[in-house]
């Protein structure tokens, strides 16, 4: 395991600037999540670190060593691809053993057998070990490709949306499992996702990407409580933060726009809001409101039934202030 440093890395494909001047340090043993929508440059960042893509500029240090001229094999990274890429001509067992048999690791066969079995049990696929890789369900394939990374003990694990193709229950299980494995082994892990729940639950640090740029990097708590922009604030929190003109409410004038998460909306007092509808999601009940033509979504007590077309009163509490361009003011 090692610390990984990115110094101003950039990559363009033709006119598309996929990654722009990203500088960040992934500490030894950190679980860093890169969060961003599709096209934000998450995959490209991982490929630049792994050496599958050549840097336009900047440098990458793994364990203090400049790896810009190293091949992917020399960089000692393990990667789970967004498109799981099991070797279709091999069995599950041979897929898992493949990295261990590489000329770099040359693991003895008895140790391979032991490690493969161990990983298969963690990922709940020991009964599939002798299947052809193509004879698996999508979820099983994805678990095998996670396993193919976990059998190794590399400087850093790079994972590109590894859970996105799994069903909700398995995703929740593996989220916990992955976090546990990483904590047990003290692994350094860079994990890419557009799923904020994965980011919030697993990360020691979150990096938010916007159009190839790293716009904020901090602990989940910092990024959630102190977002630098509307863009970052919108990445975290469900329901999403409400961005409203500040002149809607009395006494909010530290900036032209305010951001209100459900916990910043106090109900019972303040200005009038019309209830459009309420949604019962089981663990939470969402209230869709309209305030002078602006939609506002917040949460409510699940036992309190608010009928449509009712009117309630709301007031902001500790809102976040943003300027007209979306940058955080206070």
């Amino acid at each position, binding site marked *: 395991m090692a610390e990984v440093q990115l110094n101003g890395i950039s990559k363009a494909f033709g006119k598309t600037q996929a990654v722009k001047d990203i500088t960040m340090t992934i500490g030894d043993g950190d679980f860093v999540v890169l969060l961003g929508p599709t096209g934000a440059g998450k995959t490209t960042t991982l490929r630049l670190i792994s050496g599958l893509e050549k840097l336009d500029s900047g440098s990458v240090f793994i364990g203090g060593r400049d790896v810009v001229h190293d*091949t992917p094999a020399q960089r000692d990274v393990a990667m789970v691809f967004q498109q799981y890429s099991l*070797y279709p001509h091999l069995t599950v067992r041979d897929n898992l053993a493949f990295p261990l048999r590489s000329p770099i690791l040359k693991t003895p066969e008895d140790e391979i057998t032991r490690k493969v079995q161990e990983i298969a049990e963690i990922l709940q696929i020991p009964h599939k070990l002798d299947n052809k890789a193509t004879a698996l369900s999508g979820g099983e394939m994805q678990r095998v490709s996670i396993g193919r990374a976990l059998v190794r003990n590399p400087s850093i694990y790079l994972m590109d949306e590894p859970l996105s193709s799994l069903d909700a229950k398995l995703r929740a299980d593996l989220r916990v499992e992955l976090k546990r494995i990483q904590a047990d082994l003290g692994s350094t892990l860079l994990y890419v996702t557009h799923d904020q729940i994965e980011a919030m639950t697993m990360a020691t640090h979150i990096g938010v990407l916007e159009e190839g740029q790293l716009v904020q990097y901090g602990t989940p708590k910092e990024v959630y409580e102190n977002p630098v922009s509307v863009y970052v604030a919108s990445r975290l929190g469900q329901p999403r933060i409400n961005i409203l003109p500040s002149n809607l409410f009395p006494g909010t004038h530290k900036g032209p726009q305010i951001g209100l998460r459900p916990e910043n909306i106090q109900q019972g007092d303040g200005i009038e809001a019309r209830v459009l509808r309420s949604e019962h999601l089981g663990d939470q009940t969402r209230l869709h409101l309209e305030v002078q033509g602006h939609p506002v979504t917040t949460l409510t007590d699940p036992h309190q039934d608010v009928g449509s077309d009712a009117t309630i009163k709301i007031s902001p509490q500790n809102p976040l202030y943003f300027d007209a361009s979306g940058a955080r003011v206070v």
Partner: protein
Amino acid sequence: MSSFSVNEPSNRTKWFAGSLVILYAIITMIPLVWIALTGFKSPADAISYPPKYIIGSDSEAGFQPTLEGYVNLFTTRTRQTQEFLDANPPENWADEIVRKYDMVIVGPSKFGERFLNSVIIGFGSTFLSVFLGTLAAYAFSRFKIPLADDLLFFILSTRMMPPIAVAIPIFLMFRNLGLSDTHLGMILLYTAVNISLAVWLLKSFIDGIPTEYEEAALIDGYTRFQAFYKVVLPQAATGIASTAIFCLIFAWNEYAFAVLLTTANAQTAPPFIPTIIGIGGLDWPAIAAGVTLFLLPVMIFTILLRKHLLRGITFGAVRK
């Protein structure tokens, strides 16, 4: 339900399609079966009318199978006087067969040698075409090569004129290089003709193999070349097998260059088989035997590679 499904044709459709396939197979098989049968007839049975086509039957349409055709194909014989025949009893079963016509075997014919030449040149050039073609196709498919499209077009353009149009320059070139009538010369020539087909066919196959597999192997600790042969080659097996069959069929059947460039040493079977016609009248069973044997290698090769042809491209291991 199933009658609306695209994947599951109705029983009647299946039956109809099946019959069509069988009918087509029978029509294509008849000439081949006829040639194979003729190879086992006596010269008289081979040209009798009405034709005979039932093996070992006493009926009107039956004939007794014999190896005369094969013996005649592989040997040279001379007619002998009765005294000689009486004084020298047949040496083996083949000799005994030709005694019927007052002949004795004096030695092997050229057929065995020509057949072996065909095997060496056919399989040698096929191996070389597929080997070079795979490497070139991989490079074209995966690396940024300057002027790649122009190079590919250039490679294809070598197939645009009939090969025989360049026969005379090649003939002169081969003579100067000492390649005339050599195995090496013919292997190089057939490889040169086949390589464009091999590169184009294999490139389209390799283009269809997602690069993620190699990238995964690169990260798993393998070099580019190891990733190529451990991950790409097994998946290109279908393409390699079908390309090999195409190359072999061309090299195996090629006639014009073989006539022009080979004589005593490296002559292949195609120019040789017609010469049988000239030796002592039309020996149809011998010609049929030669043709049957000539058809076998391509058939066996195709059957051996069948597994790879039918397995098809593996779907499903890369999420689209």
